[in-house]
């Protein structure tokens, strides 16, 4: 079953989040690294106050694929860890939940850095 409405929501919400970041980059000279940090912390915050699950229900990948989702997963993991095993869970939960993404990014970066070389930006 293909849910067109869901896909439209994913597209527009995902696009909207990216264009907010783009406005910030253009208007404020904030570097992209800082934007990412802001969005991750925002994701953690939204999950912490319990809003993020509603966003996920509404737009699924539209909010989880942007780096907000990484923040959400960290906070979700920390809260789950706290529920299950108390204080130690606060420390282990976040990274456990996001370990897949970080490990994948590191592994693929390692692999492709061995295979390829960095090139000069092209004439555009």
């Amino acid at each position: 079953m293909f849910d067109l409405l869901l896909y439209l929501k994913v597209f527009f919400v995902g696009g909207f989040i990216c264009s907010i970041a783009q406005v910030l980059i253009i208007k404020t000279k904030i570097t992209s690294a800082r934007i990412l940090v802001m969005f991750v912390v925002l994701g953690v915050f939204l999950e912490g106050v319990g809003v993020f699950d509603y966003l996920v229900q509404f737009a699924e990948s539209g909010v989880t694929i942007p780096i907000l989702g990484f923040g959400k997963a960290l906070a979700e993991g920390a809260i789950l860890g706290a529920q299950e095993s108390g204080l130690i869970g606060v420390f282990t939960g976040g990274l456990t939940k996001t370990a897949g993404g970080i490990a994948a990014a590191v592994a693929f970066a390692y692999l492709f850095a061995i295979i390829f070389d960095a090139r000069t930006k092209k004439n555009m």
Partner: protein
Amino acid sequence: MNKNERNARYNAYVESKIPKTHNFPSLFYAFIIGGIICVLGQTIKDTLLSIFDTMTPQEASNWASIGLIFLASLLTGLGVFDDIGAIAGAGTIVPITGFSNSIASSALDFKREGIIFGMCSKMFIVAGPVIVNGVVASIVVGLIYLIIEAF
């Protein structure tokens, strides 16, 4: 005119001289490409869910992230990602692809300085702050949760 006053006047003047960029096209590209990447993630997730009956939505969305991370690293290695990024701006930076690109591009760039002290140690020069801040913030959230639970 003292120096501070002169500098302030000069900087205000420079600010007025900076050419105004056309914001709309870059916003448009960021929106479209950012949206497409999210749709791609959703497609991977839904396809996996329809093929594997036993897979949970959580697992599927993890696979979707890993799929996009793979794609972004590959495009970075092929030298295509920076060209897309030059057009899309935040459209490729904000999705998980940007996180992946920042790690892969640093790894590629510092390969010449050696595998250990170059590639491996410099891998997180851009992505490091994201992980650090995210982890610290999540621990704070977890602690607050514990404190609230205690009462």
